């Protein structure tokens, strides 16, 4: 409970700072919406094409927008050596890491919620036919990006080329989760419900999230100290 309480303090701090500057959200939301518009004009998809490629396009855009969010996750602690003050406090490394995850997760969800209506408007599709399944898919896939994005944001925070390194490291690691997310979102964009034969993709997402969350929390101390 103490870890969770400390994590929420860090989450609130990050969200408050972000809502004051809006530097990450403005960049990620405008990127997401403008790329959706560009794809829409470039492809001018028919309903059949939307059903075929819409899920992949949508999740790729969320993934790229997520990179913008997680580039700032630990970089936010660089001015004034704030990360030192956090690590020297009684907050455990796991609490600091989890707090950063929650903040990044919230920001990614905001980007997704604001981008979805634009997708429906310009691509059509029946993505809102199964809102419950869409929510579960987006929550699980977003957490996959969150856990990897936060881990590598912490690992690359002191690198001069961290903005370049983050996607190079994160995208290959996310392959299994992204394949599952593409598959599930493609079905949902086509208006198909996720049936029992497709539950394995949800299991892949859930398993990915569980394994890498446990791993990241166990290694948080090694990542943050030194």
């Amino acid at each position: 409970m103490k870890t969770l309480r400390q994590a929420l303090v860090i989450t609130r701090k990050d969200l408050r700072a972000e809502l004051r500057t809006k530097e990450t959200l403005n960049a990620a939301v405008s990127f997401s919406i403008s790329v959706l518009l560009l794809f829409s004009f470039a492809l001018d998809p028919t309903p059949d094409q939307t059903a075929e490629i819409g899920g992949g396009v949508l999740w790729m855009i969320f993934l790229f927008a997520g990179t913008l969010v997680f580039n700032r996750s630990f970089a936010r602690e660089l001015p004034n050596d704030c990360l030192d003050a956090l690590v020297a406090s009684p907050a455990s490394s796991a609490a600091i890491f989890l707090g950063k995850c929650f903040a990044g997760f919230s920001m990614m969800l905001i980007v997704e919620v604001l981008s979805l209506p634009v997708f429906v408007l310009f691509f059509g599709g029946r993505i809102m036919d199964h809102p419950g399944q869409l929510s579960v898919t987006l929550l699980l896939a977003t957490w996959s990006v969150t856990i990897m994005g936060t881990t590598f944001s912490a690992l690359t925070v002191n690198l001069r080329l961290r903005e370049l390194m983050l996607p190079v490291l994160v995208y290959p690691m996310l392959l299994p989760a992204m394949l599952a997310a593409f598959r599930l979102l493609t079905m949902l964009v086509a208006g198909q419900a996720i049936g029992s034969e497709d539950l394995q993709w949800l299991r892949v997402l859930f398993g990915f999230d569980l394994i890498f969350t446990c791993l990241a929390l166990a290694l948080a101390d090694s990542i943050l100290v030194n």
Partner: protein
Amino acid sequence: MTNAVEIEGVWKYYGDFPALRNIALTAAQGECIALLGRNGAGKTTLLRIAAGLLRPAKGSVHINGGIGWLGHGIGVYEELSAYENLVVFGQLHGVADPKKTATHWLERTGLDRVADALVREFSRGMRQRLAVARAFLHDPQVVLFDEPFTSLDDRAIRLLQTLFGEAIAQGRTVIMSTHQLREAMELATHVAMIQRGSLVHFGPRTAEMLADPGYLYRTYGES
């Protein structure tokens, strides 16, 4: 007397370069150690290891009680107000009433009038005072300060000396690295000097050091 800080046989390497070589020192409750040495001697590395921000290659560090840390960076957030910064750190440190404690420390450091102003609007001196408030906020048993007098005007230096003096009188342990020898000697009960990663002197501050703060540097050929 219980040792508040015990540093035993600490080594630290940056690559192959030994930044610290077999450092050992102890500090009891109510002691103030002035950590002296030229730039690059290893003072910051030693303090960072004591604060748990770096791991030593060999040796161990034991700290009894909570740590108040102030490094080269002030460790406060530009996009939060002074009050919000102190409340955040109060909550992380598990302070019983973070809001009341934040208000108290803003008054003590003379920042109560700008409590709601964002830190990005603060001068260097105001930031440093806020950082001091952050470090003392949770009543730490051990205070580790890396060059705390840097960039402070004489009024802020007096305030900091008062806070240090009170902390020492209350039985807290202070270890500070500094190049401001006169201010450090006035507070210190002990003096440690690091030269190229080795501890070349550690002992009580003498009247001679107080009268002539540069004495140790001359003794070890660094004048």
